[in-house]
Structure formats: C-alpha cells, structure tokens
C-alpha cells in the first residue's frame, strides 16, 4: 500500500498541462466548454467496431490514459447505446456487422451524433467495397463527422468529437 501511494505521489499529475501540445490543450478546453453549454453533463460515447483491424481501438484506449485524460474533459464511454449521445464507429462496415450496427444506431436515443473513425470508416480504407464489406460507415448509417487516419491520433479523435458536438442539430 505504501509503495502504491508513494508511486502515485512521485508520478504526480501528468494530464497535459503546459508544456504539453498546445493543440491538445485548446481542444480540451473547447470540448469542455461546449459539453457544459449543450449537455450540462458528461458526453456519453458508445464505441462500435463495425469491422476494424483493431488499430483504431488502440488509439481510443489511449484517450483514456492520464495524458489525454478523456474523463477529465467530461467525456465518458458507456456500455450501452441507450446511454449514449454519440456513436464512435470504427472500421469499414462489414456484412456480418451490418445488422448489429443498425440495431445499435436504432437503440441510441435522439438526438444522436455519429463519428466515423479512421480511413476505413471514412472511405472503406484498403478494403473498399467487396462482397464481405459495405465500405464507409455513411453507406450504412448517417455520419456527422468523419475522422481520417490509420489510426488517427488521440488529438485528432478529440478534434473529431469536438467538431461533431459543434455541428448544428
């Protein structure tokens, strides 16, 4: 126990403060203000992997580390689409996930936002459209913001979320 406490104390707070990347700070502050203004509570995100290679998931996980400290800017991932304001969808939408994705979308209460993440979500990526894959996310459900990258960095993902919550409607 003593070792644990000593480690916590010696590491201190690493969440990005100066001299962290300027961009991250700006995005964090903007997200914070926007969420407070629109929702007055945390923004709830439900992630759906519709056919990803699992690369984008690695960077979504990074968002939760102490540097990006996602929960510190009023965003949290939830276990059910029924609790979500925003769907974060990765991968091209493959045939075997089409029904599941549509059901998740239908289960998410209105008004809802959808962010398609990664090159696959934006364009279908290296797979494109084929008998097993329907391609980009917007071929299957309406998408508000598409964030390119393979995988997109955590800062880009945060910016995509910010863009989505700033979009009208």
């Amino acid at each position: 126990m003593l070792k644990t406490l000593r480690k916590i104390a010696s590491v201190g707070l690493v969440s990005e403060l100066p001299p962290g990347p300027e961009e991250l700070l700006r995005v964090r502050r903007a997200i914070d203000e926007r969420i407070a203004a629109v929702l007055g509570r945390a923004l709830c995100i439900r992630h759906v992997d519709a056919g990803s290679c699992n690369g984008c998931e690695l960077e979504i996980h990074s968002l939760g580390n102490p540097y990006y400290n996602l929960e510190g800017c009023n965003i949290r991932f939830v276990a059910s689409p029924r609790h979500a304001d925003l769907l974060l969808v990765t991968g091209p939408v493959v045939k075997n996930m089409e029904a599941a994705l549509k059901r998740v979308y239908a289960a998410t209460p209105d008004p809802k936002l959808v962010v398609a993440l990664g090159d696959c979500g934006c364009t279908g990526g290296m797979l494109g459209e084929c008998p097993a894959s329907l391609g980009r996310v917007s071929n299957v459900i309406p998408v508000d913001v598409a964030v390119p990258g393979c995988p997109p960095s955590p800062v880009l993902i945060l910016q995509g979320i910010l863009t989505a919550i700033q979009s009208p409607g």
Partner: protein
Amino acid sequence: MPLKRWWDRAHKIVGASSVRGVGVDAAQWLQVASDVADSGGLLHALWVSREPAGDAAVYGAYLTDAGVLVAELALPSGGGSVYYPGLEDLFPAASRLQRAAFDLSGVRSSDPDLRPWLNHAAPYEFVRVDGEGVHEIGVGPVHAGTIEPGHFRFSVVGEKVLRLEEHLGYVHKGLEQRFTQLPILQAHRLAARVSGDSAVAFSWAYCQALEGMSGGVLPPRAAWLRAVCLELERLANHLGDLGALGNDAGFAFGLAQFSRLKEDLLRAVSAAFGRRYLFDIVVPGGVAVDVSTEAARALAEVVRTVCAEIIELRGIYDEHEGVRDRFTGAGCLAPELAARLGVLGLAGRASGQARDARVDLPCAPYTELAVAKIVHQGGDVAARVAVRFEEAQESGRLLRRLLAALPGGEHAATVDAPPADAFGVGLIEGWRGPVLVALQAGPEGSIRRCHPHDPSWQNWPALEYAIVGNIVPDFPLINKSFNLTYSGVDL
C-alpha cells in the same frame, strides 16, 4: 523417427528459416498429421487454395522441432465436389480452420461439424447444455467496452460457467480475396492490417515470404530495425495488457500507470519512426524510414526508464493482495490441456508450452540475440501476467542491445516481383505468438493466394476451456489475460 522421413523427402520453401514442403495423397495427409502429433509437433495453419476451374489444394503447416513442415494435398475436382480428410481428431484447432476454409473456398473436410464459421447468412446453432437450473447468457457481438465484436454464449448455473461457446467471424471482411487484387509489392500494407495490434509481425512475415521468393538479401541494418519495431510492438502491447489486467482486477492504479508508460513509449516511437503505431514501417526489402543515431539513443533511454518502472510496478502488483487474489487460479489452463489444444505464443508459454519462434526458428537478427524464452507452468491469469512482465523486460534488454549496435549500411534494398507461382512462407513471433503468412505469386507482380494466420486460431478454443468452472464476472479478466484478436482470425 517417422516424422523425419517426411522432412527428408520434403523440398525447401523460401521465406522463414527451416520451412519445407511435401506433396501428399489423402492417406499420407493423415499420416503426416499423425506423425507430427506423435513427435510433439502441432498444426499451425490450414488453408485451401482453389483455382477458378475448380481444382483445389489443401495445405497444412505444422510446427515441428526441425522447422515448419507444409503438407500439400492436391484435390482435382474432376467436375464434382471435393473432400479432404479432416484433422480435428488429432488437432482440435483444425475444426474451425476447416470450417472457415469451407466458407471461403467451398471445399469441405470430413469433419462432421458442418456449421458455418465466417459465413453468417444462416442462423448459428449453439450446443445446448441441459439440466436443472442451467441457463444461457449471450454476450455480443457488440461488447460493453472498447473491444472487437464477437459473440459469447455462456451456459451457467448460478454464477458458475459450465460451458462457453464462442461464435466469431463478425469482422470477416474478405481479406484473402482482397490480397489477390493487390500488387504483390504493395500488399504488405494489407498484411499490417490483418490485426492492427500485430502490424509489424504480420507485415514482416509477409515481406519475409516475398523476399525469399524474389531472392533478395535483406540488408543487416534493415533486419535489425525490423527487430526493433517487433520488440517495440511487443512491449507496447504488454504494457497495455498489464494495465488493463490490473483494471479488470479492480486496481485502477495499474491502468493509470501502465497506460502512462505505454504513452511514453508511443511518443518515443513517434519521435524515432514518425508514427505512434508501426503500420507500414516494414516494407519489401527493409524498413520505410531509417533512424538516426540520436533518435536511437533517445528511444533506448525511454525504453530503459519504462522497463525500470515496470519492475517497480511488478513489485506493487505482487504485493497487492486483492490483485493476487483475482489473478491466482483464475482461468487455469493446465499444461497437458494446452499441449492437447496446441496453444501458442504467450498463452502457451504461460501453460508450459516452451515455444518461441525467436528462439526455435530464428531469422536475422534473432540468430545473434540469444532471446530468453519465458515459460511458466501455472496456466492461470497470474502466469499469463508473469510471462508478460518478464517478456517486457526481455524486450527491453533486446531493444537496448539492438539500438546500441545498429549495423551501418542501407535500411532497405530493392525487391523485384517474384516469378509467377513462386511460393514462400513467413513466420514471425509476434507479441501474441507465431504469425504465419503463406504467399503465392501470380503472373506480372500479382498475388495468386495469400493466407495470413494468427495464433488466436489455436488460443480462442483454449479460452473456452480456461473459463469452465470460473464465475461469469471473472470472464473479462480471463479473456483479457489471453487478449486474442478477432480481426486476425475473422479474415
């Protein structure tokens, strides 16, 4: 030595060190499998190639003490449908491989389990468990956390799991077909995306097969830089898992600390290689970017710091009674069962299966590195955690050694497209276990067939056994301790 007889008459296959191929008839197909099983070897990969005319061939790649033995059984169609003898009685992992191969090629094995695997068009029949108080819990394909999709069907009494049946294939995206549409000199990019967390392992295995077929020589500096990337991938994934495992045991401190260390490492990787995750760094002939002496030194310094902190955190995990209580005895896979199921990679090494391709079938530069094989006998979550802790340290040692003595010269050489029908096999020990890529060239720089194999094919069925008798709430922890890929096996 019956297996030796096959090995001696087999021809050399290019790519990884010590791969041989042998053409067999249907009776010999079973005899090879049985000789491999008798000698303590295992079935690694199984795939079917089918020509448009209908003629087909089934391939079985075995891991043996001498190397990788690839048996090829030609299946001339003669206008009708073709069958081959299934290997599921000798190697349980064969069952899903054969069912997947049928879904992809239409070529059936003699396995009586005819349920589709990757093809989800028809409803799937789960095995029912009957008895007083037995009920089912279905989970997925969309899970509660940020993980890949798949379905788990638990049959439980109270909280205790009587049986788990996995149904995967949800992220099947036609990878093998897509390979055949890409130029052979560019498809390493698709190989990197078979399972994104193993980008280096898959793209290296692909390039290893390709370079063998083209007859190119990998510059020493390129080989060393690839090993740097592979060990960075191993270290980053182990850091992520060690944090997530602490979290699943109710120790959020672990997630905070290990995810911080992983981010430190990713930023150092980004400074050295220009990307946080090492996609598209392994290219035919070498690596995409060179690393300056200063960048190598800075990266080695971060690795040193991270590894020192891992030792400190291991002390904290070991002394934490709550964590120890959750890890010890959970999800136990006994060594005998692991051997029977052919469990591979880190999960295998945590259950006494002492295989590591970096040691057993090393390619350059592992031939010079004397990698320490980390083996534990416990087979529980604690053993899989211990293997990760020790492998992370070993990767740290290898990285410091590699980065301190990078050979001079070019970081990439030119590679020409191999001649049509050239065939090669790549084998690389990724962080999860041995990754295999079988590659056959088509005419004019095209791909006739490419089959990528992840060790999760072997290890997913093992998870079904490891969970039996445990309670449902321990499943996330036990599942995480294996951390298998969905994308890599859904193809």
